[in-house]
């Protein structure tokens, strides 16, 4: 069971009280009449399915009944952040990979991490790759 922090109730609640509602931050094309079929089709039907950090829309169905966003890691199921509607996430795939770079962790594109990527072993790695 998850313990999810509801940004409106300002406390952690049981997962039972929540429902996931799919991908967050989907923007409706400004002018649907003028946009291409492909853009409209993307907007209506196509969703991201990343391996790693994903921003999702959830609703606190039994509770305050407000929609909010969750940043969740789809591999570890870890909830990295919850934030209100209309706000932008502070944790993103990009911000995480930058943090990893600073800590010397080499992140593969899929989100998995490889060991031995510290700056001091950089020369070794270079030699190995050639």
């Amino acid at each position, binding site marked *: 069971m998850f313990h999810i922090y509801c940004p409106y109730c300002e406390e952690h609640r049981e997962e*039972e009280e929540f429902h996931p509602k799919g991908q967050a931050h989907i923007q409706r094309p400004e002018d649907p009449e003028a946009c291409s079929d492909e853009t409209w089709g993307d907007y209506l039907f196509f969703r991201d399915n990343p391996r790693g950090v994903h921003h999702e829309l959830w609703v606190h169905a039994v509770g*305050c009944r407000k929609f909010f966003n969750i940043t969740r890691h789809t591999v570890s199921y870890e909830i990295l952040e919850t934030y209100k509607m209309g706000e932008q996430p502070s944790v993103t795939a990009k911000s995480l990979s930058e943090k990893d770079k600073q800590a010397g962790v080499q992140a593969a594109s899929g989100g998995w991490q490889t060991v031995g990527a510290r700056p001091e072993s950089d020369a070794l790695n270079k030699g190995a790759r050639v």
Partner: protein
Amino acid sequence: MSDVKEFDTRPTGSPSSESPLAWSFHRRGTPPREASAGVTLREKAFLGHLILRGGAIVLDEAVREVLGITLPARPNTLALDNSGERSIQWLSPDEWLVIVPGGEEFALEGRLRKALGQAHYSIVNVSGGQTVLTLRGEKAREVLMKSTPYDVHPQAFPVGKGVTTVFAKASVVLRRPTEEGWELVVRRSFADYCYRWLLDAAAEYGVIVER
């Protein structure tokens, strides 16, 4: 004054009315009184329930003027007047539940509408849709612990708190207006189910149903 049409849901004269638990009482009666019961259950039927929606600042002014209670602005809080009979509870950032003694709700709605004027708000009388069950006794908390995943330890659930949460697969508004008693605001359609669940959960401690 807004142009909303109001009507009193309570009919004039005195036709007989049934509480949401009437059917449960009719069908199974109440359990025999036990001398050493740990839980006392009681229905507070026919209270006036209003749902207020709108901005906190606008509503607060009106509610203080009309009811004399400050609108609870913090999440999951509950405010009572001095008599303890009228209460306002935070349900969501723009939604509050007002419970007043039965018969007062229609007049209150009118006074609130007058005080709110042309502001952007909504008031809905939901008195017929829900009922209040009270739970008292030293084992009341144990019964709740069996029924809801929410933490009901006094440290996490002090007096003056109220939450909407899962209760026995249904949903209730669970609140603690006083030190010794808990209140459950249950939907009319779930009332019989919740009542029977509570009887079952409280059976091991001994239960008295007051009527």
